[in-house]
């Protein structure tokens, strides 16, 4: 169905002789960042500019190379009859997206990370991450894929640890354990695949899920994808990492890159390596719907800008999984498109949070407010992204959600009743998303400021990436068919029929005309009477400073409503955190063993004697 369909597959095989000599170009976007990143490690700390310049140049070069490669797809790198790397329609656009986000994050880091320690290490890890991600996406061999994939968990661990502060190493450990643990499950899945198909080449494997063995193999690989993308219940590292990691790392890994990789892998296994059955599809859609609602409900009550975004990073994965789970062409295309869109606006939202953090030195929502006047660029980009993630037309988030809904409804036409649940969950999820972002916008940029201290807009190295991403949100929404769908998504999914569509371009023009009508009404009115009154109207009294609505408690009513009150309380106790559950089980058993280690020699000797007696009894029997 995807790139490894007979057409592309035969190109790999027939082009064996032709391509094998020049397939090495596929190694460039992997090796260049890996090698130059290593070089970065050896740049002395005093030469900060050198490491910044080197990493910007490297990430830009990678981006240019990937764009060049994008134009020559399909392509393959075959080494001694092993098709190691494969560039098809699916992997090529994700590769470009990785390189693009890599470049933007590097650029942003130059502005954000100024004055921090261990900068050369930071840039090294960043470049390694880009290289390994490109490798993971291009890899056609499952073992090679696993190597790159596992490497990414380590760079994430290292990058989180670069932040200074309380609880950071704990968070890094948690991320490493959850992702690393799921990698172990992937190994198990790959072993099962070998048993079923006797091959490690993704393009050669095509398994129909009809037995317990194949279902187990699929689920093992899917768990890896879920942990990476942050789907429930393996999501718990995402909010923690978002809050504690250095901001560009949060914007790069959990917000954009891990979504690209996780969803890429899920699409790869769901459409290419395996053929899903109805039960698996239902499982995916149920998981997706649950993730949407549960994560966004958590986001609703958060007090920290970055943590709130972290929960949204989880919630949005639900939409992608839901789209892929429909199994319809338009649903899968919608899921992929949503993945790309989510990476764009989520990255931008994190960047805006970084700009706020840079100026105000905090991301606690109750200590912010009224920043829109001082940071207009940050405010506008953040608002555009917030509306995009809430699915407000004509922005890109609406376009992809609309495709996913259509996939769900198309599925419903084939029979079954469950599609109603998925559809309602997805649609209601966007209302909840809107709610939590309105809270965020109010608490950060609008409302009353927490202090009268003036702040200024951040420098161009930070606002340029934000503007690029916000513009991409607009463009991908308005020119949805001409740009992203035509060049990126539709080639990757076979059989997407789009007919009688909503014309986002016309709608945008009309909305602009509508706003113009409003301006004319303003002009008709008494414009000379414009007056800036000194104080807000509060019944004729001047507002005291402490009478401030921060917005943090906007949804307190919802939080106190049953059954949510109980659920929130349990969630605060981390009852639903799979990491803490496992930790609890583990510490229970260690506690048992610890109880035996009393330090009294007599007890030990008794046990040893008892053991010898048991052994004797066994052997002498």
């Amino acid at each position, binding site marked *: 169905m995807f790139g490894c369909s007979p057409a592309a597959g035969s190109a790999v095989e027939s082009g064996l002789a032709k391509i094998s000599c020049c397939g090495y170009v596929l190694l460039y976007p992997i090796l260049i960042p890996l090698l130059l990143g290593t070089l970065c490690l050896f740049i002395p700390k005093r030469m900060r500019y050198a490491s910044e310049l080197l990493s910007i140049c490297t990430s830009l070069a990678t981006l240019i190379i990937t764009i060049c490669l994008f134009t020559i797809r399909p392509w393959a790198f075959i080494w001694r009859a092993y098709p190691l790397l494969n560039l098809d329609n699916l992997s090529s656009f994700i590769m470009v997206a990785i390189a693009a986000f890599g470049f933007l994050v590097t650029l942003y880091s130059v502005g954000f990370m100024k004055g921090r320690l261990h900068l050369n290490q930071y840039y090294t890890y960043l470049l390694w991450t880009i290289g390994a991600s490109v490798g993971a996406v291009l890899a056609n061999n499952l073992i090679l894929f696993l190597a790159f994939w596992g490497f990414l968990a380590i760079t994430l661990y290292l990058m989180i640890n670069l932040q200074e502060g309380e609880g950071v190493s704990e968070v890094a450990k948690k991320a490493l354990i959850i992702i690393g643990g799921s990698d172990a499950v992937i190994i198990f899945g790959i072993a099962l695949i070998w048993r079923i198909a006797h091959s490690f080449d993704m393009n050669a494997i095509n398994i129909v899920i009809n037995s317990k063995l194949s279902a187990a193999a699929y689920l093992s690989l899917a768990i890896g994808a879920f942990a990476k993308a942050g789907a429930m219940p393996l999501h718990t590292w995402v909010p923690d990492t978002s809050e504690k990691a250095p901001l560009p790392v949060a914007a790069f890994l959990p917000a954009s890159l891990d979504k690209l990789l996780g969803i890429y892998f899920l699409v790869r296994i769901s459409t290419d390596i395996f053929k899903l059955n109805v039960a698996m599809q239902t499982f995916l859609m149920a998981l997706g719907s649950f993730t949407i609602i549960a994560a966004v409900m958590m986001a609703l009550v958060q007090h920290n800008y970055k943590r709130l975004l972290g929960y949204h990073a989880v919630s949005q994965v639900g939409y992608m999984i839901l789209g892929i789970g429909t199994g319809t062409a338009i649903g899968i295309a919608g899921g992929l498109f949503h993945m790309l869109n989510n990476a764009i606006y989520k990255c931008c939202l994190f960047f805006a949070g970084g700009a706020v953090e840079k100026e105000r030195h905090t991301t606690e929502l109750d200590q912010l407010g*009224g920043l*829109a*006047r001082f940071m207009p660029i940050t405010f506008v980009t953040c*608002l555009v992204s917030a*509306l995009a993630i809430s*699915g*407000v*037309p004509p922005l890109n988030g609406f376009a992809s959600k*609309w495709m996913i809904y*259509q996939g769900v*409804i198309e599925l419903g*036409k084939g029979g079954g009743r469950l599609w*109603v649940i998925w*559809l309602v969950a997805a*649609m*209601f999820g966007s*209302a909840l998303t*809107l*709610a939590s972002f*309105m*809270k965020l*916008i109010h608490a950060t940029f*609008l*409302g*009353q400021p927490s202090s009268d201290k003036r702040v200024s807009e951040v420098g161009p190295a930070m606002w340029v990436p934000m503007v690029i991403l916000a513009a991409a949100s607009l463009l991908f929404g308005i020119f949805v068919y001409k740009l992203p769908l035509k060049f990126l998504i539709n080639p990757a999914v076979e059989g997407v029929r789009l007919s*009688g*569509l*909503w014309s986002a371009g*016309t*709608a945008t*023009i*009309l*909305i*602009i*005309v*509508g*706003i113009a*009508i*409003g301006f004319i*009404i*303003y002009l008709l*009115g*008494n*414009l000379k009477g414009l*007056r*800036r*009154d*000194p*104080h*807000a*109207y*509060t019944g004729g009294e001047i507002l005291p400073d402490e*009478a401030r*609505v921060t917005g943090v408690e*906007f*949804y307190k*009513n*919802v939080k*106190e*409503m049953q059954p949510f009150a109980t659920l929130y309380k349990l969630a605060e106790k981390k009852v639903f955190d799979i990491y803490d559950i496992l930790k609890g089980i583990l510490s229970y058993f260690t506690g048992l063993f610890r109880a035996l280690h009393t330090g009294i020699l007599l007890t030990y000797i008794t046990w040893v004697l008892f053991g010898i007696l048991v052994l004797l009894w066994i052997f002498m029997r």
Partner: protein
Amino acid sequence: MKTIVQFLIFPGFLFTAVVGLIASWIDRKVTARVQWRVGPPWYQPFVDMVKLLGKETIIPKGTSAVTFLTAPLVGLASVTLISMLLWLTLLNPGKGFIGDLIVVLYLSVIPAVSIIIGGFASRNPLASLGASREMKLVLGYELPFVLALLVPVIKAGGSIRLDEIVASQMATGATATSLSGVLALIVAIMCMQAKLTLVPFDLPEAETELMGGAYIEYSGPPLAVYKLTKHMFMFALPIFLVMTFMGGFGPSPISLILGLLKYVALLVIIVLIRNTNPRVRIDQAVRFFWGPMTLFAIVAVALAFLGW
């Protein structure tokens, strides 16, 4: 170009604004009759608009003036777009596109967003509270509203095209003639009441407690735009329900008159609800929508699946 003219005059801005203002007159007149008053003459809403345009615009100090002034305009633009989409579909059967139902549903949230952003940008605690109530109200009604709208979708064989939904109702009878349709329509009317922020769901404005809430700092032309948007929405939203639940109408004169009668019937229901109920608290409102209304809507969807 033709589209822009349609957008500006008919069935877009001018048409919707005029009918919307007349609808607001009907509202005021019926309210007055319920309260044993005479009520204003028919041109009163137009005069009010002109008066507001003549007043000065006050922008609170320390706010982002651009946000404060732009927020009302976005709502106006989206309501105009909704009205245009609906009327073009009604007047040219077969001219819809896949998923226009979802587009209208999503566009109809934008007026609320515009009020919320405007309220937030006012730098006033009362406005912030009002706007947050508006947001919670959206949270409340969105769930039952989506569920209720699924009933016509299921009745039309899973179509999310408005023209197909209207056509299937013309063929087999309006959605509201079936049991599930009646239930869903009741839910949808309640949601509409909240979407229009009319009593008992006028919490975002709540004159007696929040002194206008989200609108508190608005004056002159921007306030006029908000009022106009609200009146226009009072025209566009019932038309949406007429299309999805009450059989819609076509371009022929008789059908048009029938359609307008259906609209007026809905409008009178709205006005009567608003005049016979006290304002509820926000937690009561959310509970009402997430509790009984959602339950009603789920029952309606289940009945629709069973073919009732």
